């Protein structure tokens, strides 16, 4: 078990190292001189040389990369060209917004997709399965930005039920408000969260529901399930202990893979809903050619994905005794 955890941790570190190599090459692949880019439009040749020395761009590439990684480890993400301030605080400031959006979307996905998938599988070709198949097919086929726009059009513009864009009270403050007797704060954060969360989770929700259906269906046909039934175990016990427990394995695997997709989808959803998160920041900083900020944000987002994937790997320990014992 310790070996499994050590292996996973080592793997995560390797992946992060490779990510920094990619973001590092991003800057050096860009056409033109990075120093000239960072010195600004009206820089003289002297300014550019000075900037080049300051950034260490006169050193050989491997050394530059080593310095870049060492700086990252120490929390030095470089300086944003557009804002002229260190990049890390700019990213940190926007991180909570992305965290609450993606985590809530993941929770919504799991809370609906798994029960939904089980209901579909219990009676294959029944009414619930048929309706579910149609709904989930729609879910995996609809472009998220279009769904977002249609939702804004109907819910916000026509019915005037929810705000069209922006972010309300941070969710954490909303939850604290609920405990300390200010439920209106939670309402304020949820009002803004509903549409982006639904939009972001639509694809994954439908995808995981379809997967749950096929996974449960497969387990239902196994001999040990029929044996459990034959021994007269109550249906609820068979479903939870024998079927779901095993059916969850492939679901957890795919969830680990899909997290990257969910976080990537946040770039589009944050843009549609004017949600002030890291996804929007990546997109804005790249289009403004603010490479240090973009590099930092990409490293941060990938770090988030790697951390979540690691969590999924650790969830295996609980779910699968074979992993624990090997």
């Amino acid at each position, binding site marked *: 078990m310790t070996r499994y955890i050590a292996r996973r941790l080592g*793997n995560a570190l*390797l*992946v992060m190292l*490779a*990510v920094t190599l*990619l973001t590092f090459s*991003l800057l050096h*692949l*860009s*056409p033109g001189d990075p120093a000239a880019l960072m010195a600004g439009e009206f820089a003289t040749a002297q300014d550019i040389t000075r900037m080049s020395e300051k950034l260490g761009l006169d050193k050989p590439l491997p050394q530059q990369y080593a310095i870049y990684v060492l700086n990252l480890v120490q929390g030095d993400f470089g300086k944003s060209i557009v804002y002229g301030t260190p990049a890390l605080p700019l990213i940190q400031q926007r991180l909570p917004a992305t965290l609450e959006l993606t985590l809530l979307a993941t929770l919504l996905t799991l809370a609906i997709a798994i029960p939904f998938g089980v209901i579909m599988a219990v009676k294959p070709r029944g009414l619930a399965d048929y309706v579910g198949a149609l709904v989930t*097919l*729609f879910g*995996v*086929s*609809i*472009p*998220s*930005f*279009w769904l977002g*726009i*249609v939702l*804004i*059009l109907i819910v916000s*513009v026509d019915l005037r039920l929810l705000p069209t864009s922006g972010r309300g009270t941070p969710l954490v403050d909303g939850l604290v408000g609920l405990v300390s007797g200010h439920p209106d704060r939670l309402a304020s954060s949820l009002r803004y969260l509903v549409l982006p969360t639904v939009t972001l989770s639509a694809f994954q929700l439908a*995808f995981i529901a379809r997967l749950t259906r*096929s996974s449960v*269906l*497969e387990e239902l046909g196994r001999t040990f399930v029929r044996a459990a039934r034959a021994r007269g175990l109550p249906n609820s016990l068979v479903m939870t202990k024998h079927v779901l427990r095993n059916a969850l394995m*492939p679901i957890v695997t*795919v969830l680990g*893979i*899909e997290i*990257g*997709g969910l*976080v*990537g*989808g946040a*770039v*589009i959803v944050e*843009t549609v809903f004017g949600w002030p998160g890291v996804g929007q920041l*990546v*997109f804005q900083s*790249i*289009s403004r*050619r603010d490479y240090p900020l*973009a590099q930092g944000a*990409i490293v941060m*987002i*990938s770090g988030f*994905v*790697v951390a979540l*994937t690691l969590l999924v790997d650790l969830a295996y320990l609980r779910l699968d005794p074979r992993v624990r014992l090997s």
Partner: protein
Amino acid sequence: MTSREWQKAISLLRVHRLAQVSIVILVVVVLLALTAPVLPLPNPRDQDLGNVLLPPIWERGGTPAHPFGTDFLGRDMLSRVVWGSQISLLVGFSATALAALIGVSVGLAASYRGGLVDEVTMRIFDTILSIPGILIAIAVLTVLGQSLLLLIVVLGFRSTVSYARTLRSRVLSVKEEQYVKAARAVGVREPVIMIRHVLPNCLAPIIVLTTIYIGVMILIEAGLSFLGLTRLHVSWGVMVAESRDYLATAWWTATFPGLFIFLTVLSINILGDFFRDVFDPRLQVRTGV
């Protein structure tokens, strides 16, 4: 596909109404894309500032000259939707073809040999998977410049991973089969075993994955166009993006291109389900975009 699978596909298709409808929709979209230059449509880029935001023909104020209405620059919506199908289909099909080609070769070679090569390849794939594909695409397209070819290469390259991983899980079990061992025992050379004996038995999940991926690629292309990374082209994603400021007054500008993306991808996904039913309902297909 073996001839028995073809027979099964055809007999299943006879009763599968949804699959029939999907094939019809896809054929229509492909025909529209191919015949766009010869169809009697106005130029999709021609602006007519005297006729901006005209509603579709069935609404009050619509004209037969613009059956789907016009956008904020007076461009004909019907013509733009038809021309837009070219980009979606081109990117969808070629990026998937690229991904399948590289993914299948790399996945087959690495997993068949096993050992260090396999290990290293899988670690590289883990890395690629941990960076959201859309971020890679945005970064590459902004840094190296917007071009359709680059977009196809980036999307295809990123999705290679899913092919290789899906194939790998299949190869690992197929290469232990009796017929592979038998082939080796009679002295068939390894590359021949790999291509003639292992690969054909791993193709079913690849065909299902390919169907799904064409749809996924169309969705990603639309998303990137929506973000403004393929502004040079007439594309469904660009059309939805441009309509954002006119949502309340001109619903048709966002609705038509969005509906075409949706229907196309929906038909592709229904066909994907159909193929999965034909082969094996328990196929393990791994996506991850």
